[in-house]
C-alpha cells in the first residue's frame, strides 16, 4: 500500500512538474534569476501569470527553446526531455493566452497612402500620379504601414484625400476636343544657355567627330599656377563672344562635360512641356577620358541621367527619369517614354564624372591640363505629348464617349475653370513658340450631355464597380445621382457636377476601406493589394465572381499571373522597402571627406540592389539560405566597382554570379543595409545588430532602459566603436541584452557606412595614408585608423571569428530564416500583427516547403493558401 501511495505521489509530482512551468524555472533558473539575485535585472520569482505578462513569458519560452538559457557554461543543465516538456507546455499556454489577447481575424482598414495613389492611378489609367506627398503619413506597426491598428482616419486625412482627388481629376479630364499639338525637336547642346556658359568657362568642351572642335578652342590659362585661379582671364571676353556666335551656337557638334551638376539646374535642355503627357525622350551619349586636351578611351563606360525638375524648383534635386550608359568613344542612343507634368524642365547630368570641389574652369591649366573622366552629349530629342487616342483613356473612364463641345455662355451655368496655357518664362520658350494664337488661347470646351442624369447613370454603372471593387446594385448609384442633380440645380456645368460625384465616390468608405477577407471578392481585393499594392483587375474579380478563387489551383494560377504582371513591381519595391527598412536610406548623407566615393550614381546602384534581389529570390523560388548566401548579386557597373567585382558595365541592374567565398550578394553584404544602419559618418554595431535581429530573424531586441546615456562617437581615429561599446558590455545590466544584440553588428563592422569592405577605420584625424590615395578619380583626404575586429559570439554561444563565419552560421539556420521571412510577409499581406498564436501556423507553412530548401516563392504561395491569409482564422 505504501509503495502504491509513494508511486502515486511520485506520479502526481511528475504530472505537476510537467504541467507547471514554474517548477522548471525554480529548478533551472532561480539560481541566477530569483528575487534576491536578479541576474541581469531579471526576477522570475515575482513574474505574473502568462496572461498578465505575456511578452515576458514569450521571451522566456524563446530563450529556452533557442538554447540561450540556461547558459551553456552552467553546470547543471535540464535534460532534453525536461526542456522539451517545458517548452511544449508553455507553447500551449501561451498560444491560448495569445489567442485571447489578440483580436481574431484581419480587420477592416483604410487604404495606405501608397495604396490610395495606386488605386487612383489604376482606376483612372494615369501613367503617373504623384500625390502621396499631399496625404498624411500612415502610422507604422512593427515597421509596416499596412497594419490596421496604425491606420487611423481623421478629418485631416479626408481633407487631404479630397485635394489629391481633385489633382488627379485635373490630369485625367480632357479640356479640349482635339489632342494637343505634338512637339518634336532635336536639340543640339552647344546653343543651350547653361551649356554656353560652361563652354565659355571651360568645364565643357566642344567636340566634333570625337575630337576637340576647332570652332571653340580648348581653354587653357594659368598653367604656371596651382589650384584655384577663378573663371576670369584675358580670354574670357572673346570666348564669350565666340560661344554666342553662330559657329558655335548653331553648331551640331557634341559637348563634352568634364564636371557633373552640382545642384539641379546645370546642364539644362531648355525645354519644358506645355501640356502634361507622355513624351518620348531620346539622346546620344558617349564616354571618354579627358587628357592632353582631348578625348581618349576610358575603358569601362561612363554614365549620365536625365532628370525632371518641378516648376520653380530648378535648384533642388529633381526626379530621376532614367540613367544611360555612355560607352567609351562610341555614341550610344538611349530612349525612354515617360510622363512629364506641365512645366517640368529637363536636365542632363553626367553622373559618373566625379566632383572634386572646383569647376575645371576655375583650376589652373583649365581644360587644357585637366585629366579625368567625361561624358559627351551628341544631341537630345523630345517628342510629345503622345496621345494614341483622344480623348485619352483616363478621360473616357470618367466620361465615356460623351462629346467635348464648346461651352455655351449666356445661361447662368458656371463655366468650368481652366489653367492658362503658358510657357515657362525667361529662356525656356521652346514649345510655346510652335503654338498658334488659337492654340495659346483656346476656346472654352467641356464635356457635355443632353440627358445628364441618364448619362451619369450609365457612367457610374461602369465606374462604381471598379471603384468599390465589387458588383453594385442600382440603388447604390442613386445617392450619387441625387448629388449630381443638386449640383446641376446649383448651376454647375456637367463637368464640374460630375467632379463632385467622383470626389464623393472616391471618399466613400467602400473605396477607402478594405474589408476583411470573408468571401472570394474580398479575397481578390486583399490579394491584389498584397501582390500589386493596388486594386484587382477585371480578370481577378471575374474569378472571384464565379466563386472559384479560393480553390487552391485557381488561387495558385492567379498568384502566378499577378506576380508575372508588371504591377507586381510595386509589391517588390514596397515590400522590400518596408521589410528591410529601405526608407531609412535617405536619412543620412555620408561625410564627403570620409566617403568621397559616394555620389549619386553609387547611391542609385545601392538603392536598386535590394528590391531587385528580393524580386529575384521570390520569382526564382530560391531557398531561404539565399537571403544571406545566394552566390550572386544584383549589380550596376558603379556598384560592382564599389564592391571590387570586375567585368560589369552599364547602368542597368543585372544578376552577376559570385564565387562561393564572396561576402557580397546576400542581404548582409548589401550596401543599402550597411548605409541605413549607419549615420553617414560612423557605424553602430547596436543599430546593425537590432536590424538583423528584427528584420532577418524576427526576434526584435528590447528597447533600452530609461536614462541610459548614449555613446559619444569619436572619429578622431583613436578609439573604435567596439572599444567604446565594451564599457556597456562589461556592465552586467547592459550585457544581458547587448550580448545578444551586438554580435551581428560586430560581424558587420567589416562594412563601412557606405557599404565598402574595410579592414581599418577611416579617420579625419590620425592615421596612415591609404593605398588608394592618388589612384582614384575622386580626391582621397581621409586616413586609415585602427583595425576592424569583426569577431563575436551568437546568443546561443556559437562563436565566429570574422564576417564570413557569421554569414555561414546564419545561412545554416535556414528554417529560422524561412520562419522570419514568412512572419514579415504575413504582416505585409494580412495587415495584421503576428502573434505567438500564429507561430504554429507559420511553422506549418514553412514545413511545407522544406523539400526545396524553403523556397521564397513557395513560401509566398503557402502563405497565400493558409488560413492566416484567407480568413485569418486559427
Amino acid at each position, binding site marked *: 500500500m505504501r509503495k502504491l501511495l509513494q508511486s502515486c505521489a511520485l506520479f502526481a509530482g511528475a504530472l505537476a512538474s510537467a504541467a507547471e512551468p514554474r517548477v522548471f524555472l525554480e529548478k533551472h533558473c532561480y539560481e541566477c534569476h530569483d528575487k534576491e539575485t536578479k541576474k541581469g535585472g531579471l526576477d522570475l520569482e515575482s513574474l505574473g501569470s502568462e496572461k498578465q505578462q505575456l511578452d515576458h513569458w514569450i521571451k522566456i519560452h524563446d530563450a529556452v527553446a533557442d538554447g540561450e538559457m540556461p547558459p551553456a557554461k552552467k553546470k547543471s543543465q535540464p535534460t532534453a526531455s525536461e526542456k522539451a516538456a517545458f517548452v511544449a507546455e508553455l507553447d500551449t499556454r501561451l498560444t491560448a493566452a495569445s489567442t485571447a489577447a489578440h483580436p481574431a481575424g484581419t480587420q477592416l482598414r483604410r487604404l495606405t497612402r501608397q495604396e490610395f495613389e495606386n488605386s487612383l492611378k489604376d482606376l483612372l489609367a494615369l501613367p503617373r500620379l504623384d500625390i502621396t506627398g499631399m496625404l498624411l503619413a500612415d502610422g507604422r506597426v512593427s515597421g509596416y504601414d499596412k497594419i490596421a491598428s496604425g491606420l487611423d482616419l481623421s478629418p485631416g486625412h479626408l481633407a487631404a484625400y479630397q485635394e489629391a482627388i481633385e489633382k488627379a481629376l485635373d490630369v485625367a479630364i480632357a479640356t479640349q476636343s482635339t489632342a494637343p499639338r505634338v512637339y518634336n525637336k532635336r536639340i543640339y547642346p552647344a546653343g543651350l544657355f547653361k551649356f554656353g556658359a560652361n563652354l565659355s568657362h571651360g568645364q565643357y568642351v566642344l567636340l566634333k567627330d570625337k575630337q576637340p572642335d576647332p570652332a571653340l578652342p580648348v581653354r587653357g590659362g594659368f598653367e604656371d599656377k596651382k589650384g584655384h585661379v577663378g573663371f576670369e582671364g584675358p580670354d574670357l571676353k572673346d570666348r564669350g563672344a565666340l560661344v554666342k556666335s553662330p559657329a558655335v551656337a548653331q553648331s551640331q557638334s557634341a559637348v563634352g562635360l568634364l564636371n557633373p551638376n552640382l545642384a539641379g539646374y546645370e546642364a539644362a535642355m531648355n525645354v519644358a512641356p506645355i501640356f502634361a503627357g507622355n513624351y518620348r525622350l531620346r539622346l546620344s551619349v558617349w564616354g571618354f577620358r579627358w587628357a592632353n586636351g582631348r578625348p581618349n578611351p576610358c575603358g569601362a563606360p561612363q554614365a549620365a541621367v536625365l532628370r525632371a525638375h518641378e516648376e520653380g524648383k530648378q535648384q533642388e534635386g529633381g526626379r530621376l527619369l532614367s540613367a544611360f550608359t555612355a560607352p567609351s568613344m562610341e555614341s550610344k542612343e538611349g530612349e525612354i517614354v515617360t510622363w512629364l507634368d506641365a512645366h517640368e524642365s529637363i536636365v542632363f547630368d553626367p553622373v559618373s564624372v566625379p566632383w572634386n570641389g572646383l569647376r575645371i574652369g576655375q583650376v589652373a591649366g583649365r581644360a587644357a591640363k585637366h585629366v579625368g573622366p567625361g561624358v559627351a552629349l551628341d544631341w537630345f530629342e523630345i517628342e510629345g505629348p503622345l496621345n494614341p487616342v483622344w480623348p485619352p483613356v483616363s478621360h473616357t473612364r470618367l466620361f465615356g464617349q460623351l462629346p467635348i463641345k464648346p461651352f455655351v455662355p449666356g445661361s447662368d451655368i*458656371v463655366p468650368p475653370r481652366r489653367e492658362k496655357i503658358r510657357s515657362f518664362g525667361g529662356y525656356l520658350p521652346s514649345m510655346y513658340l510652335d503654338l498658334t494664337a488659337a492654340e495659346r488661347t483656346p476656346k472654352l470646351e467641356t464635356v457635355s450631355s443632353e440627358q445628364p442624369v441618364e448619362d451619369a447613370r450609365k457612367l457610374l454603372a461602369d465606374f462604381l464597380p471598379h471603384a468599390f471593387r465589387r458588383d453594385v446594385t442600382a440603388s447604390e448609384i442613386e445617392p450619387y445621382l441625387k448629388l449630381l442633380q443638386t*449640383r446641376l440645380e446649383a448651376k454647375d456645368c456637367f463637368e464640374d457636377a460630375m467632379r463632385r460625384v467622383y470626389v464623393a465616390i472616391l471618399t466613400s468608405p467602400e473605396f477607402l476601406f478594405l474589408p476583411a477577407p470573408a468571401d472570394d471578392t474580398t479575397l481578390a481585393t486583399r490579394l491584389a493589394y498584397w501582390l500589386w499594392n493596388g486594386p484587382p483587375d477585371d480578370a481577378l474579380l471575374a474569378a472571384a465572381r464565379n466563386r472559384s478563387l479560393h480553390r487552391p489551383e485557381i488561387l495558385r494560377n492567379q498568384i502566378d499571373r499577378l506576380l508575372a504582371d508588371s504591377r507586381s513591381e510595386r509589391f517588390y519595391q514596397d515590400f522590400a522597402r518596408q521589410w528591410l527598412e529601405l526608407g531609412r536610406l535617405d536619412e543620412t548623407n555620408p561625410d564627403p571627406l570620409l566617403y568621397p566615393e559616394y555620389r549619386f550614381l553609387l547611391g542609385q546602384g545601392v538603392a536598386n540592389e535590394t528590391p531587385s534581389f528580393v524580386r529575384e529570390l521570390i520569382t526564382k523560388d530560391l531557398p531561404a539560405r539565399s537571403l544571406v548566401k545566394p552566390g550572386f548579386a544584383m549589380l550596376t557597373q558603379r556598384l560592382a566597382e564599389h564592391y571590387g567585382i570586375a567585368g560589369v558595365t552599364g547602368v542597368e541592374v543585372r544578376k552577376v554570379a559570385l564565387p562561393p567565398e564572396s561576402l557580397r550578394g546576400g542581404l548582409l553584404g548589401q550596401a543599402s543595409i550597411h548605409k541605413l544602419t549607419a549615420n553617414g559618418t560612423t557605424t553602430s554595431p547596436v543599430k546593425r545588430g537590432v536590424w538583423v535581429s528584427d528584420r532577418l530573424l524576427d526576434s526584435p531586441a528590447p528597447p533600452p532602459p530609461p536614462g541610459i546615456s548614449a555613446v559619444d562617437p569619436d572619429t578622431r581615429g583613436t578609439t573604435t566603436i567596439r572599444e567604446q561599446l565594451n564599457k556597456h558590455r562589461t556592465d552586467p545590466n547592459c550585457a544581458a541584452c547587448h550580448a545578444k544584440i551586438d554580435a551581428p553588428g560586430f560581424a558587420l563592422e567589416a562594412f563601412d557606412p557606405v557599404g565598402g569592405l574595410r579592414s581599418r577605420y577611416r579617420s579625419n584625424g590620425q592615421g596612415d595614408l591609404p593605398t588608394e590615395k592618388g589612384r582614384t578619380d575622386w580626391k582621397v583626404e581621409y586616413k586609415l585608423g585602427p583595425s576592424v575586429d569583426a569577431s563575436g559570439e551568437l546568443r546561443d554561444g556559437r562563436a565566429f571569428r570574422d564576417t564570413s563565419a557569421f554569414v555561414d552560421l546564419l545561412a545554416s539556420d535556414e528554417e529560422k530564416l524561412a520562419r522570419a521571412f514568412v512572419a514579415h510577409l504575413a504582416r505585409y499581406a494580412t495587415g495584421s500583427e503576428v502573434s505567438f498564436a500564429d507561430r504554429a501556423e507559420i511553422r506549418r507553412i514553412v514545413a511545407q516547403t522544406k523539400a526545396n530548401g524553403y523556397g521564397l516563392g513557395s513560401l509566398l504561395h503557402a502563405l497565400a493558401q493558409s488560413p492566416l491569409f484567407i480568413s485569418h482564422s486559427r
Partner: protein
Amino acid sequence: MNRRDFLFAAGACLALPALAKAADKLPPKRLLAIHVPLGMMPAFFFPKAGEASSPYLDLLAKHRDQFTTFSGLSHPGVDGNHHAGQCFLSGAPHPGQPTFRNSLSLDQLVAEKMGEDTRFASLGVAVRQGEHYADSVAVSRSGVTLPSEASAEKLYRRLFVAGTPEEKAATMRRIAAGGSVLDLLLDKAKRLEKSSDPQDRARLDQYFQSIRELETRLQRNLAWENRPKPKVDYPMPKDIADANEVVARSHLMFDLVRLALQTDSTRVVTLSLSTFSVVPHVPGVKNETHGLTHHGNEPDKIAELRKIEEAQLAVFSEMLAAFRDTRETGGNLLDRTQVLYGSCLGNANSHSNQNLPMILAGGGFRHGQHLNFDTVNNTPLANLYVSMLQNLGVEADKFATSTGTLRGLRS
C-alpha cells in the same frame, strides 16, 4: 524693461480683472513653439557650474531679462534620437519603436481651448529641405502629425490676401459643393454603421466623426469667408528658392509669424527650423549640417557647426527684438506671447534625448534666470508645459508625462 512694461507686469501679478477694467481690452495670450531638430551643442549652450551665462546665451544677452533657460529637462521614455522630434510637444514615449503611438501635442491642446475665435485655430510653419522627421511638431488627438507650411508666399496668401470677387464666389461655390458631398457621405456612414460588426464599427466611427468634423469646419470656413482679412504693411514675399539660405528663410518666417500673431489671425503657432540636408549659407560653412552634428569631437567640425548654430541664435535674437518692438495695448507682443525655443536632442553627436536645451521667453513669466534640474535624473519637460498651460489660462494640472508644474518658474 520700461516703466510701462513694469507696471503692466506688476499689475498682472496682483489682480488681473482690475487691470483688465483699467486698460483697453488686453490682447489675448499666445503660444509660439519653435523646434530646432538638430539641437544646439551642449558645451556652448549650458552655463558651466558657477557661471551665469554661456557662449550661446551671451548672444541673447540683451534679452536676458526676457527669457529663462533650463537644464536637466527631458521627456521620460522619449528616446529614438531624431524620431523624438515628433514627441517634442507631446511627450509620447518610445517613438522609434514599432508599437509607437503619438498623442496630443501641447499646441493642439491650446488650439482646442483658444482656437475658436481666430481664423486659424493654429498654424504649423516650417523652414526645411525635403521631408524629414521633425518638419512638424503639432500632433492631433489621434496621434497624427499635422502638416506644416514651408512656403512663405502661400502662408502670406492664406493670412492676408483676400480673393477677388470671382475667387470669393468660387470659394463659396466650393464650400456649398463640399457640403453636398459631405451630406452624401454622412448618410452613407450612418447606414454602414447599422450593418457592420462591432470590430468594424469602431473604424467606421472614426470615419463618421471625421465627416462631422469636416462639416463643422466647412461652416466655420463659410463664416470666415465673409469676414475681411487683416491688412498688413508688409509686401507679399517671394519664396527663397535656395534651401541653403536658411538664415534668410528663417527671418522671413519669423516675420510672417509675428504678423499672424499681431493681427490675431491665430494664437497658436508651431515652427520647425530644420537644417537637415542643408549647407547653410553662413561664412565659413561648407558642409551639410546633419553630418556636422556627428562631429565625433573633431575640432574643425565643431567650429563649423558652431557657426551655424550661432547664426540661428542670432536670427532668434532678432525675432525677440522685433516682438518687443511690436507695441500692443498694455505692453508688447512678447509680453503676451509664450515663446518656447528648444530641441528634442540634448546632444546630436551621441543622439541623446536627455538634458534638452530649452529656452522660454515672454508670456508674462518672471524671467532672467537659469533653472538647474538634475542632469542625471531629469525632470519631466512636460512639467514646463503644465506651467505654460496654466499661464495661458487653460485649466490643467497634468499634461503627458508631467508630475506637476515646473519648480522655480513663476508668472
